[in-house]
């Protein structure tokens, strides 16, 4: 029960969509998690807490931060596509890597098909290539400072 209780709190924080769905249909909790009656009321009260908007936003800001730091040109080039792209990425990968470089590298791999799409925003492919090259250079310097051999990158 404790396991499911913590998982439920984490998932309504990571997914505003799920949080809103639970508000509208509290029975969703019973469908997804094994909770005691008290735990069910606690999770429901959290989903309806007025600070959940802020909590969900902070979580998304924390996930966005390493991408902005490591892939600034790519994030800028996505322009109005940024929000739907991030929503899709976070649906595909609900939990971030602890290490920001790995999270950024994973986002790069995930984004690659879009960069090759003729309908992609202008300049996205070039921004993505430049950011990825710079990212790998920084990882190389960091690994050298940590006495770890440089990897052979998957393309």
């Amino acid at each position, binding site marked *: 029960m404790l396991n499911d209780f913590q998982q439920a709190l984490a998932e309504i924080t990571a997914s505003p969509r799920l949080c809103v769905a639970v508000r509208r249909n509290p029975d969703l909790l019973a469908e997804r998690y094994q909770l005691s009656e008290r735990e069910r009321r*606690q999770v429901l009260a959290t989903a309806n807490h007025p*600070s959940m908007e802020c909590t969900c936003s902070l979580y998304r800001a924390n996930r966005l931060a390493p991408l902005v730091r490591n892939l600034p040109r790519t994030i800028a080039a996505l322009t109005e596509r940024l929000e739907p792209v991030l929503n899709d990425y976070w649906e595909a990968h609900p939990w971030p890597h*602890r290490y920001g470089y790995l999270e950024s590298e994973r986002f790069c791999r995930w984004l690659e098909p879009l960069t090759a799409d003729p309908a992609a925003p202008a300049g996205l492919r070039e921004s993505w290539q430049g950011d990825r090259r710079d990212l790998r250079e920084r990882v190389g310097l960091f690994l050298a400072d*940590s006495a770890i051999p440089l990897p052979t990158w998957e393309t």
Partner: protein
Amino acid sequence: MTSAPPQPTHRPSVGLLFNPSTPEVMEQVSDLVEHLSVNPGQMFNDLGAHSPFGARFAFPASLLQAVAGLREGLMLNGHSFSLSLPSATPLDDDLADAISHVGDRLGGFAWLAEHLNVLIPPRGPEAHSEGGMALPVNYDAETLALLSHKLQRLRQRSGLRLLLENPALLTPLTEMEMDEPTFLNTLHRNGHCGVLLDLHNLLVSERNGGLSMEHYLARLNPEAVEEVHLAGGEELFGTYTDSHSQLTPEAVWSMARSFLPCCPNLRAITFEYNETYFQFIGCQGVRGELERMHHLAQSCALSPAPTGVPC
């Protein structure tokens, strides 16, 4: 840089939580800094159990050498935000060992503090992912047993005194078996940990529907408190947050002046700010906080030996 003041033995020491602006700040305030706190998780990178680079942990030598040099002559304690001790999962032994390793590389931690939050969901789909979140803990018998076991194991592995920090709650839980000070008092009474009392976190929790600061401090055992954090925050989307973006608000100073002289085992008072707000706080802001902290520390007498149950 001015020289570090001698380590006080009769009152709590005054210090800062390390962040990337600290070396610059120390150039101007080191005469007021008696200890540093360091988040060990910022001193290495966790590449995951299936690291593409072979090793799970990377310890950047240049950073560790710089911080080791900065803390020379100062007490250093670990202030971790990594282990997610209340998560319904076993203790991450390798991560605990990496934190200990950082302490060794920096010349030794006086103690290790962790946050009383669920930081990692129990069923993250990727090993060693972290949620980027700080969830509230359900204060009940099940969590108490889980935490007691993990604290005991962590203390055995690290050999360090352990403290738990009260969380900043944006969405406090309802209907708990016990309140937070009772939960912390119980852990302390059973010899599992002391308390890192973050007074600003109390303000955050109060403003978001948690216990009032007065009620909380009336229930918390003052003997359990070994370190205190001061900080400031701001509102975001109508919610008061622990953003570490401001100087310590007067409501927190007021509580500090009334409660800290009652804490016989208080060894350190630490100011936290986020480096991204340093341009607004500035060296003069930090100096002002440290001067007030010294005045506060003078009103607190430290017991020669810890009273109550040792941790």
